[in-house]
């Protein structure tokens, strides 16, 4: 009887777990492990797969394109994160309270978030068009000769960052709104009665109370932004002159343009290590001083 029960129980456990677990093993876990193993091989998918020792890593260290991509990924992250956090927080502060037409405003901020990156990137490629784009037209109206944006190595990354901030402001706003709702209104009211100005209340109460959310948003946006690809691929393909080249774009090109499967995996390993590091920081930070709802 007991034995029969046990078999029955195992059957049910397998019944419920297997569909998800099979997918996870076949299409996530095995590929992850294979990707790490592939870093030790050279393979163009046509000739025999070749053991390459550490030569992919040697190539990585000497590869200017890789370092260029890493550098530009970092400059994307550094340009994008403070920018989107400020705009997101700003809009969240405006939205936090009794507002007429809140739903309509929220929809406006959220349409870019739910839209596909490709549609948004195409729209901004058009807006940034040097000759016929709306942006340079408006700049010209106020007497500024706009740059060639996506065609200018000095400006292309800025354009990509601006586009990304436009798309993600609503997303960051949503995260901040959730955090702002946790700040007890009584605290702000008490400070107000004691004569604290809006600015003082913001820096003395709102920001400190919001610090867990700020930390959370920073981690989330950082993990997302190191994986930047879609907008870059559509807007510039990494150009001009490699000025918007990023890590994932290099993974993609090495794998599916140059068919260097091993080397592509090696670059993706770098991305993995960066994300792992950020995750470690997140776990440490959570332990120390962050409370979540």
């Amino acid at each position, binding site marked *: 009887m007991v034995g029969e029960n046990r078999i029955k*129980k195992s059957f049910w*456990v397998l019944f*419920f*777990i297997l*569909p*998800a*677990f099979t*997918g996870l093993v*076949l*299409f*996530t*876990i*095995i*590929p*992850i492990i*294979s*990707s790490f193993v*592939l870093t030790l091989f050279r393979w163009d998918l046509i000739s025999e797969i070749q053991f390459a020792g550490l030569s992919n890593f040697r190539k990585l260290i000497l590869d200017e394109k890789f370092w260029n991509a890493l550098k530009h990924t970092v400059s994307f992250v550094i340009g994008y994160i403070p920018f989107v956090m400020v705009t997101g927080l700003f809009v969240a502060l*405006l939205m936090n309270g009794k*507002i007429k037409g809140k*739903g309509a*405003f929220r*929809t*406006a*901020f*959220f*349409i*870019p*978030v*739910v*839209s*596909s990156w*490709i*549609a948004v990137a*195409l*729209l901004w490629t*058009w*807006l940034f068009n040097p000759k*016929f784009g*709306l942006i340079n037209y408006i700049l010209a109206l106020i007497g500024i000769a706009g740059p060639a944006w996506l065609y200018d190595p000095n400006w292309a990354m800025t354009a990509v960052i601006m586009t990304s901030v*436009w798309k*993600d402001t*609503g*997303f960051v706003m*949503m*995260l901040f*709104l*959730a955090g702002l709702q946790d700040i007890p209104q009584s605290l702000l009211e008490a400070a107000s009665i004691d004569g604290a100005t809006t600015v003082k209340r913001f820096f003395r109460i709102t920001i400190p109370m919001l610090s867990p959310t700020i930390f959370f948003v920073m981690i989330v946006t950082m993990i997302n932004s*190191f*994986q930047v690809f879609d907008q870059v*691929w*559509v807007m510039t393909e990494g150009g001009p002159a490699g000025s918007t080249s990023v890590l994932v774009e290099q993974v993609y090109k090495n*794998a*599916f343009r140059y068919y260097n499967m091993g080397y*592509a995996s090696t670059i*993706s*390993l770098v991305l*993995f290590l960066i*994300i792992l590091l950020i*995750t470690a920081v997140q776990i440490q930070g959570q332990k120390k001083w962050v409370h979540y709802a």
Partner: protein
Amino acid sequence: MRKKGLLYILLSLAALTMIVPLLWMISTSLKSNQYILKMPPRIIPEEPTLDSYKQLFDLFPMLRMLFNSITVAVVVVGGQIITSLMAAYAFARMRFKGREFLFLIFIATMMVPFQVTITPLFITMRYFGWLNTYLGLIIPTLHTAFGTFQLRQALLTIPKELEESAFMDGANHFLVFSRIIVPLAKPAIATLCVLAFMSSWNSFLWPLIVTRSEEMMTLPVGLSALHGRYETKWNMVMSGSVVSIIPIVIVFIFSQRYFVQGISRSGIKD
């Protein structure tokens, strides 16, 4: 009162920053070829026309791509809900050896960026002969560690008493799962549904890798191909963008609550 006024002015300006580019998208899509590159640009088209939409569907396999995107999204959302709901049930409602360890594996995979897996995944698809097929687009994305995690958290909150009496009456796990647990988890399922739909509908990197011919492309990949083919026909490119955005915006408007909950709780947007 003056403060309130300033608030609305700032809020409106911010909202306009969001809306004007979208209006420009729609406006461009309604212009005929002769007006797209006309300076000064006009936000209200002189002679609005649906020509570019017609061209889009005539010269480009747009209908097929819409069909592909819808098919893939529907199957993937359905598949993800079923697989993750079942696994979540086992993790939240059953006790078995190795449960914690297995769950930890699910969680751990969430920390690995998807891009790490694309090279071996492509090789696997090639080996199976699934490149440029629906199987290749769909099968590798039918499971979700994130969804399993989210649903498990939701199922943990359901009180034990409900299923205990059902087991007493001789019900098996499948009955308890489908008759008691699933109905109680509806809000969590709805949240995962909209997030999974958005993620599938907007997915770019995987369809870009796995599809070759335009007939197999989903909308985002198709749009980028459209842009490559008709680079200066901005009215066509923008009408393609409008077509790709409309379904997801409709889904958003009708299920805002779930979007907002899902995104603000998890910090996941795609």
